[in-house]
């Protein structure tokens, strides 16, 4: 009941949409009714269009994001751990961090073509720096007292890295990964909208170009929902991972 009350405004918006479309306050072309969109969605699932294109998209996003987390986190922690690496890499991070990552879309196409490879590379490059910066700030902020006491108790350098530095870098790193997760969806959809032969973005562009606007709305809402759901699931996992704190 409380949940219903909380999300009532969204329900109201949906009802307003349906009524506006039914009364043709705006042209049915520009705004198909919500029920028509739902029907189109079921149709797209039955055809398998939504499933195959969705699977292609999620594969790209998953691979790119996975790579960026593994490499980005390792890079950030080693930058905090070993000063020379920090001196070499931090100016590069500072230059590349503010670059609008969408500018890499045509570049990765030049390097790897129109297929999966260019999208995975794009998502990897675009998502890596938030993870690196999160891991770096987290590891750098690890409590000196903890490091000293671990050392005085005879922990080796590597042992300390794993047992002290990595756990204390965790909260900020996980926040960085959350940013990366949101970015991965943005880069995925924009690159697929602009150049692609499959995936959610391609399907949106294809349906839009062929005038099947109900279907286009259905795919757009699916992507938006997936992005939202991914963030919620991630937050739940994050809270569980960080349960040891306090």
């Amino acid at each position, binding site marked *: 009941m409380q949940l219903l009350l909380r999300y009532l405004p*969204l329900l109201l918006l949906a009802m307003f949409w349906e009524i506006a479309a039914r009364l043709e306050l705006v042209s049915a072309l520009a705004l198909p009714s919500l029920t028509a969109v739902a029907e189109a969605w079921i149709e797209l699932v039955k055809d398998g269009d939504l499933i195959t294109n969705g699977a292609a998209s999620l594969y790209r996003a998953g691979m790119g994001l996975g790579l960026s987390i593994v490499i980005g986190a390792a890079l950030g922690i080693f930058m905090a751990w070993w000063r020379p690496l920090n*001196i070499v890499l931090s*100016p590069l991070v500072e230059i590349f*961090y503010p*670059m609008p990552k*969408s*500018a890499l879309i045509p570049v990765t196409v030049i390097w790897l073509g129109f297929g999966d490879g260019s999208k995975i590379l794009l998502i990897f490059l675009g998502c890596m720096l938030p993870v690196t910066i999160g891991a770096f700030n987290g590891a750098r902020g690890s409590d000196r007292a903890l490091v000293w006491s671990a050392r005085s108790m005879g922990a080796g350098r590597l042992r300390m890295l794993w047992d002290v530095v990595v756990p204390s870098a965790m909260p900020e790193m996980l926040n960085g990964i959350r940013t990366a997760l949101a970015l991965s969806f943005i880069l995925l959809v*924009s690159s697929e909208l602009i150049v692609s032969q499959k995936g959610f973005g391609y399907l949106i562009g294809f349906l839009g170009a062929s005038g099947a606007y109900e279907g286009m709305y259905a795919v757009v809402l699916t*992507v938006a929902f997936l992005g939202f759901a991914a963030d919620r699931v991630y937050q739940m996992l994050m809270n569980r991972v960080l349960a040891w704190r306090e």
Partner: protein
Amino acid sequence: MAGVAHAEPIDAARFFSAAGLVVARSSVVVLLLVGWELFARSGAVTMFVLPPLSAVLERIWIDASGDLWLNVGLTLYRAVVGFLIAAVAGIMLGMAISRSAVARWFFDPIISVGFPMPKIAFLPIVILWLGVYDVSKISMVVFDAIFPVVTATIIGIQGVEKELIWSARNMGASKREVMWQVVLPAALPQILTGLQVALPIALIVAIVAEMAMGGYGLGGAMMTSSRFADSRGVFAALVEIAIVGYVLVKLMAVLRRRLLVWHQEASEPATV
């Protein structure tokens, strides 16, 4: 107090190590650029995959006597106008949500669902509604950039110390005066952080919108080069966009420091 009064004597060794650090940092960038040039000329990759830096710079030089300034200006215009609308509307909305229970009830679920959504997916719908000109590009920028501003404003206002508000009320300030003269300045660091998140988003969205819709602007020019398999043009656009992004983000950081001189933090967040 003794710790504050005690001035650190200028240590020559420390000064030289700091200077050495600056040299080391800038030489890394120079090395990267030289490495690009040499690698591209080594024949390990074709000129198409990676044109040498010198060729790219030459291309930017040629652009500069052509459409470059028009493209930069248009992209900046779309990104900055969208960002400013998002900033003003976002702060207003955040204030309304913090003040009125009805606004909170209505907007809270919309914000919390809308924030993590990849809003760029709505681009084709915005094109369908508003066409392919500036209005739709700027609307897309506003739609994407407003969320971080609203959430940062709400969090900032929530975090304002109650004592500040009570004492202002006690001294006879009206609710409106309290909001504008006490709460908003006290929430400014948070709000600026939200703006610092929103600015790069505005630029990213402006460029994607230009790429998808074509026409003038840095993103549109980049796509034109890409269609004609003109890789020099693509890399030139990449460098141009990177410079524009870097300058915008740095300007924002400077603005933050200016606006927060009175505040004890007076330093930029670690991420920028």
